[in-house]
């Protein structure tokens, strides 16, 4: 019994050590406090279906000129991301929208990270990654200041995330080789059972 107690004490200690190294959640910027000063547009039209790993999209962003000059003083970088539309977030807690940006899981894929330039419009073409799951998306750009904190944003859709959404169909990950291998290995398993069945029967008749 002593062994059990010492084992549990050691494992507890190890776990506590591991936990202390895990990153602690630092409170982040709240999305609702961000000004929507960027205009972002993307090439896919409403309802268009694109294929991951094959198709490309063109994304452009720039400062909304209706804001006073100097609004973008602090902006240093622009991070453009692909974000899930509400229909792809339903019943999927791992894609949930949270106001605290450090906990927010809406936008999980990077399209581009570029330095911010005060020209009217910057464009970038990007190929859709093969890692993208099948879902409905929109594009959002975050403007970051010198500290890397999010200062502003812009997105291709409206505030309710209902317009200008496009679909991406992900790769299946399947291949002919996988199908063949699965079939062969399965056949081998069932076949080996049959082999032993026959061998056992033979041994039985030999013993008669």
């Amino acid at each position, binding site marked *: *019994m002593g*062994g*059990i107690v010492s*084992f*549990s004490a050691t*494992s*507890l200690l190890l*776990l*506590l050590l*591991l*936990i202390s190294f*895990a*990153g602690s*959640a630092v409170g982040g910027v709240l999305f609702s406090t961000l000004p929507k000063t960027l205009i972002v547009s993307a090439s896919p039209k409403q309802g268009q279906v694109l294929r991951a790993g094959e198709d490309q999209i063109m994304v452009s962003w720039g400062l909304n000129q209706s804001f006073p000059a100097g609004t973008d003083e602090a902006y240093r970088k622009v991070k453009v991301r692909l974000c899930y539309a509400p229909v792809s977030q*339903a*019943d*999927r*807690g*791992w894609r949930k929208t949270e106001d605290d940006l450090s*906990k927010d899981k809406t936008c999980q894929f990077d399209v581009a990270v570029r330095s911010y330039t005060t020209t009217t419009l910057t464009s970038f073409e990007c190929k859709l990654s*093969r*890692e993208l*799951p*099948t*879902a409905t998306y929109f594009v959002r750009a975050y403007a970051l200041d010198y500290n890397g904190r999010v200062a502003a944003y812009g997105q291709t859709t409206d505030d309710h995330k209902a317009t200008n959404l496009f679909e991406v169909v*992900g*790769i*299946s*990950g*399947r*291949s002919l080789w*996988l*199908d063949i*291998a*699965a079939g062969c*290995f*399965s056949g*081998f*398993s*069932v076949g*080996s*059972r049959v082999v*032993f069945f026959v061998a*056992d029967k033979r041994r*039985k008749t030999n*013993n008669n």
Partner: protein
Amino acid sequence: MENPKKPSSLQVELPACEATRFELPVDSEHKATEFRLFSFAKPHMRAFHLSWFSFFCCFVSTFAAPPLLPVIRDNLGLTTTDIGNAGIASVSGAVFARLAMGTACDLVGPRLASASLILLTTPAVYSTAIIDSASSYLLVRFFTGFSIASFVSTQFWMSSMFSPPKLGVANGLAGGWGNLGGGATQLIMPLVYDLIRHTGTTSFTAWRVAFFIPGVMQALSAIAVLALGQDMPDGNYRNLEKAGNKPKDSFHKVFYNGVTNYRGWILALTYGYCFGVELTVDNIIAEYFYDRFGVNLQTAGIIAASFGLANIVSRPGGGWLSDRMSERFGMRGRLWSLWVVQSLGGVLCILLGRMDTLSASIAVMVFFSFFVQAACGLTFGVVPFVSRRSLGLISGMAGGGGNVGAVITQLIFFRGSKYSKETGITLMGIMILCCTLPIMLIYFPQWGGMFCSPKPNATEEVYYAAEWNENEKEKGYHSASLKFAENSVSERGKRGDSSPTVPADVPTQT
């Protein structure tokens, strides 16, 4: 864990030629009276290693999907409901499979029963590599889950190979090291996935390839069982039946005898609230820590793994405790320790849901895992004594009851958003306490129960022979049961009779 070798008066002296046939000392049924963990001696220790390892592989396969869910759910477009349903499906297949396994063991022996089940479910594991929808995901998890019915064959096999004083430890280690697979897989699968990713494969292909590892492990372990294992110390069922040493039993008789024994049903219920709880926790704990305390996925996986990994010592510890209690207090000691340990597990479960900080939660979870898994080991210290004729079926009932408990608990407390996970965990603890009370109703005339002492003239022979009718007794079919009865006199504890009661009407066996 080793008992001081007390020369048991139960161990009928064997003629020299028979005794030297086995590497380990044996009793009159040729079951080993010693347990040597690091030996592979044929047939006893070899059977032990084959059975725990093949069962371990089944657990690895059955719970191979949860650690890779972050990738799988994106590839297949799964929703939380899909994932919850598949989790329930993964443990529900084994409910009936465990019952069927019990009967199969009684009829064709544990070697054929377990190897057949394992080899026939391996295609489901390979098929996981080629699924592409939520419904196919549910189906493969359902069919893969059948394989953990091999639990019944491990317990049956150990009961055939080890004598009562060592049965708790043998059953506990075989069951515990098998259940370990549920924890090990949380470490193995992400590791294999990472290795495959390093070759440049995309994530949606890498997880599929990873599933070949549990599949191959499972198939090879079953082949080893077929090639190297044997059902009983004296040989395989088929050979023993042919030689007339073991009468072929009838399914109906075995079934009727098993289901009419109320103790089997009580143990099925209580096992649902130690093992069933363990399965439920295997399915939900990573998400619980991830969501409630905001740890990242790797950390949540490590915590989830540690719950299952405690099985290395916790379940065998329960079996060992059962054996020690039996030495002093007999069957009553086994029953009391089972009730106490499982109830404490329930209390810790209630506490777990109430812990608000990460470190307190982990601490309580570790203790909780020890108690709940030890209760599993303690349960199977009692099961082998409920019936001799329908040993497999009773093991299957208890084992199946474990899975029923998991299904019911997940359905009531962990599906949808009715209860938060922490409330669900606390309520699960309360249910454990309630469903453990029926242990108080278990009574053996020859050994007693928790609160009642044994009947003065009741014997083990009468109890086990009562499973056969007069016709069968005349033909001597019950001779194996009588041998078992002789050896089980140890369950009387220290106050037991010192002379083995050899009934006068049984022709002496050569």
